[in-house]
């Protein structure tokens, strides 16, 4: 009843092509942004901001990166963790070689390094498809993981073999390092993620997004329409790796505060992939929903079970949360194989015609 577009006529193509053509959607997104920028930082505890919101946003960004590759271009990748690692290590090197440049600039530009690496490992994609490509990306994952451990130059020969995060401020407020409050970090992460999500949505709705989706849906037809397959796929690899790289850099510099190579292991790749698929392939909104479900569930389940009066051991809660995540993945796939984003669309469709069934 409230979600009706009747009476909203578009008189220009520009209005028709807007990011959110329906007024209610625009209001909705404005409310979400307002909550994210004001209500959450005001009411949220440090735990909520630092242990839940910050990683959630960072993983959502990584999921967007993988979604560009897998969801939009149809190239299945199991190497996300490796590309995130490239971003993190690149950021660390750049920040220590050029300490005078502000660290947040390096966080964002480290993505270029991982984009370059992504292009190199994307080259086989011209000849290899489907699950074969997925296994090929595993090669990049394991090789990169090995490099992170084996090349001491990457960690400036630290005895700990780990990235150590320098203290940096923005407008006099600590944004990285131990003095940075969860609030400061949260605002930085939120700003980067919102901006990059907006850019991604511009890309996927324009010519480039159509090229990616064309390659995904029917690569032969796309080629015969003059879309160069290799360039298009490599562009997808580059953009995807860029996003993953930035997410990786943020993960270390704004969340972990220090990281070993194991932070970018194969398990990270699997986690991001499940976020993308549960959230919805080819949907930016889905990346957020998937990240929320996969990342938050294991954190929320133990206190939730505890609040039901079930007093269980920490380990048992962990086992149960594994089982529940597994069951939920299967459940959501059965209910809606196209992910949470499609569920949301269906819900909107229902709202649009409510109270009539259709």
């Amino acid at each position, binding site marked *: 009843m409230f979600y009706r577009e009747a009476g909203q006529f578009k008189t220009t*193509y*520009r209005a028709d*092509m807007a990011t959110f053509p329906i007024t209610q959607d625009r209001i909705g997104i404005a409310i979400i942004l307002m909550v994210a920028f004001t209500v959450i930082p005001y009411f949220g505890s440090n735990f909520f901001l630092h242990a839940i919101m910050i990683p959630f946003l960072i993983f959502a960004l990584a999921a967007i990166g993988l979604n560009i590759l897998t969801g939009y271009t149809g190239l299945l990748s199991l190497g996300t963790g490796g590309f995130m690692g490239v971003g993190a290590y690149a950021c660390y090197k750049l920040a220590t070689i050029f300490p005078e440049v502000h660290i947040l600039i390096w966080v964002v530009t480290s993505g270029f390094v991982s984009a370059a690496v992504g292009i190199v490992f994307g080259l086989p994609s011209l000849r290899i498809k489907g699950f074969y490509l997925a296994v090929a990306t595993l090669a990049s994952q394991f090789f990169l993981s090995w490099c992170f451990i084996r090349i001491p130059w990457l960690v400036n020969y630290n005895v700990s073999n780990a990235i150590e995060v320098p203290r940096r401020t923005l407008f006099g407020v600590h944004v990285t390092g131990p003095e940075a409050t969860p609030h400061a970090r949260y605002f930085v992460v939120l700003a980067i993620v919102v901006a990059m999500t907006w*850019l991604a949505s*511009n*890309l996927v*709705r*324009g*010519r*480039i997004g*159509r*090229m990616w*989706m*064309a390659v*995904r*849906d*029917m690569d*032969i*037809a*796309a*080629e*015969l*329409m*003059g*879309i*160069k397959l290799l360039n298009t796929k490599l*562009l997808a690899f580059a953009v995807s790796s860029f996003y993953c790289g930035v997410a990786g850099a943020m993960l270390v510099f704004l969340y972990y505060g220090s990281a070993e190579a194991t932070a970018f292991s194969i398990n990270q790749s699997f986690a991001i992939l499940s976020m993308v698929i549960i959230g919805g392939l*080819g949907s930016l909104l889905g990346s957020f929903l998937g990240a929320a479900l996969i990342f938050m569930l294991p954190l929320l389940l133990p206190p939730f079970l505890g609040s039901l009066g079930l007093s269980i051991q920490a380990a048992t809660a962990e086992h149960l949360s594994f089982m529940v995540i597994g069951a939920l993945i299967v459940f959501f796939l059965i209910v809606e194989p196209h992910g949470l984003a499609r569920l949301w669309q269906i819900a909107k469709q229902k709202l649009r015609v409510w109270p009539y069934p259709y």
Partner: protein
Amino acid sequence: MRAPDETTIKAGQTLLSVEGVSLSFGGVKAIRNVSFDIRKGEIRAIIGPNGAGKTSMLNVINGFYHPQEGQITFKGIKRKKMRPHDAATGGIARTFQNVALFKSMTTLDNIMAGRTLRMHKSFFWQLLRYGPAEQEEIEHRRKVEEIIDFLEIQHIRRVPVGRLPYGLQKRVELGRALAMEPELLLLDEPMAGMNLEEKEDMCRYVIDVNNHYGTTIALIEHDMGVVMDLANRVVVLDYGQKIADGTPDEVKANKAVIDAYLGVAH
């Protein structure tokens, strides 16, 4: 937006010719030593029984298959083999026998995808979207809306094409090919599986495209009636070989063609 070395070809001159083309997969010979030409502005039909090598011929023309022998001359440029990208930039568009649309994209996006080669705003502007990229998008949207109006598919603009019935999909596919503003349009059985009404609509679109945009058309079709009505000239393939070439009336009277269609033993 044409290749710089292009020579302008006037109506009636040869736009494309294939000479002595042979194609085989492993031991199977799909096309044997076939030559014919397509003249600018005409509707050229390629007919023949099942397995005659018609679709393979189209695949050779737009570069999806590479023939072992022979050459292709398009707009005066001789090639051993065509590459898909050269074909597309040179102005060859096509539709497919089994509809090769981008299934999860909407009708609008499918046809907009046909404009890809004509859109040039860089990655950077695409990222920002507002400004030049949007301007370009609007310009092309206008063109695409013309095509949508022309094909009368306004009502399915926002529907993912995978959900459309077959007849409409064929129409969207034609729209996508038209969006490329091709000089040569290859249609692979555009009327297969359609009912009479849909066929008539499709015939009308083909003729309109030919008249209105002056597009040269090469089509594969099984329905003899349709072919005889539409085509200026017809080439007949059987078992990968050319058995006849000429106007519909000439072909209709050709003994080899009659044999091929009636199934006289070879």
